[in-house]
């Protein structure tokens, strides 16, 4: 791998995934630009990066792509399997296709953009990551979501935001149902401004009208044990 901004191309039909990831990890503290060909659903591609890197992947990826990402920008021209950008700390992960289950799960920071749809549990237990999905998301999304924003241009599946803490959910379509303790909240000017700023970061500021989103969040009734709820456990 180079330590300059020149582009290097790695063909996974010829190079092993382990060698590719080891090379990317060796870039720690440096900058670079790498293009990956023929991923064919490989797992853990570009996971654990910690560098000022741009990684472009031409094709579909498997589980845990860009997991634990720090600082790097990972672009996937294709779809991603379960656990995309799981536990991301910072940086940008952008998928042009769809993402499977648990996209952005437990993410602490950074921005995840999915141009297509995601399936179940998008943003589960998110802890500060921002997620923008231009399509729809599956059931049980934002379950126990703690911090950060989840923006959905389309609809959501059942039980959106079940047992949510302080994450902010913005949905332009219709949630099929809201989970326990998740409620619609008023959308005020400062919410619209914050949403616009986030969409600007995601390169989608003028794609949609921020006025067309509704806001959902925690009713905060599950924060403390209440004896009336004892039978629910």
């Amino acid at each position: 791998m180079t330590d300059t901004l020149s582009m290097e191309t790695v063909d996974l039909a010829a190079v092993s995934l382990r060698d590719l990831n080891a090379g990317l990890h060796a870039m720690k503290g440096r900058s670079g630009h790498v293009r990956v060909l023929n991923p064919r659903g490989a797992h853990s591609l570009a996971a654990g990066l910690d560098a000022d890197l741009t990684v472009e992947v031409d094709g579909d990826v498997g589980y845990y792509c860009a997991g634990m990402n720090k600082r790097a920008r990972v672009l996937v021209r294709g779809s991603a399997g379960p656990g995309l950008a799981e536990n991301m700390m910072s940086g940008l992960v952008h998928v042009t296709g769809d993402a499977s289950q648990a996209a952005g799960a437990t993410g602490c920071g950074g921005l995840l953009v999915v141009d297509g749809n995601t399936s179940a549990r998008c943003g589960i237990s998110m802890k500060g990551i921002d997620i923008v999905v231009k399509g729809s998301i599956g059931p049980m999304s934002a379950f126990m979501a703690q911090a950060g924003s989840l923006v959905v241009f389309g609809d959501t599946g059942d039980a959106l935001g079940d047992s949510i803490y302080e994450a902010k959910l913005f949905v332009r379509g219709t949630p099929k149902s809201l989970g326990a303790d998740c409620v619609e909240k008023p959308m005020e000017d400062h919410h619209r401004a914050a949403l616009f700023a986030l969409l600007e970061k995601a390169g989608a500021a003028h794609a949609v009208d921020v006025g067309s989103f509704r806001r959902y969040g925690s009713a905060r009734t599950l924060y403390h044990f209440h004896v009336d709820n004892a039978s629910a456990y």
Partner: protein
Amino acid sequence: MCGIVGLFLKDKSLEPELGRYLAAMLEVMTDRGPDSAGFAVYGDGRIGLTKITVRLPKGADATVLTDKVGDALATGISAAVRGSHVVLQVPEDRVEEALAAIATVEPGAAVTSVGNAMEVYKEVGLPADVAVAFGLPQMRGTHGIGHTRMATESAVTTDGAHPYSTGPDQCLVHNGSLSNHNLVRRRLIREGIDFRTENDTEVAAGFLSWRLREGDQLGDALEASLKELDGFFTFVVGTETGFGVLRDPIACKPAVMAETDRYVAFGSEYKALTVLPGIETARIFEPEPATVYFWDRAA
């Protein structure tokens, strides 16, 4: 873990290639299940004849079994030996007699399937080795399902390998684990369902067999399993004319599907689908939780 694959052909010209594609998909799923592998292939049936697929114990002679079952039925029967299994074709109205004869002639034999079109093969070992041992790449057919097992709920044995037959031309493969299988097994034993193993998936198969015996259609039987079976599951069931998919309400276990004009395919991971022709432009989607899906030739 465990890996599941399924392939249902719409385009007849792909039928000679069914086994080759299924074998390639199975091999990709080795990471998810290196302990054992099995598959069901739905091939050409012959009118008036039923296929009985039998797994022979080590050292047993397929010719002897075939001859003795033929003698018992007082008719010549055709047999095809594939690895440790033999497929006997018997008159469709004499299946019970043939099964009784097999049990008498070779008590150690296990009947893996009975059906007009379906043949089920399974064995311990790496999926690629199992596929080659049975000549899967050379098999033709209309549809097939396969399974690679990473054992969790019961031992690594051939009896613990999938698919499990649930009735004539019907089988089940499973990714997940059932937590109430002992309770359900005891109930089903009282209902007269037989079990060979301590395996949780065999209970799911037995549950479906029981519901079908009681008059349910397969779709209703699958719906009933959502109520009665507790645990994680993605099921793929094969029938004479198609296959169905069901995931538990939490959808813990992965499932991805691809559809083109030529086929419908199922994989535990997208990786397994990448061996198929035209996958780059296929419609890729994930089945919803607690929803019964069917692809059927007759429909």
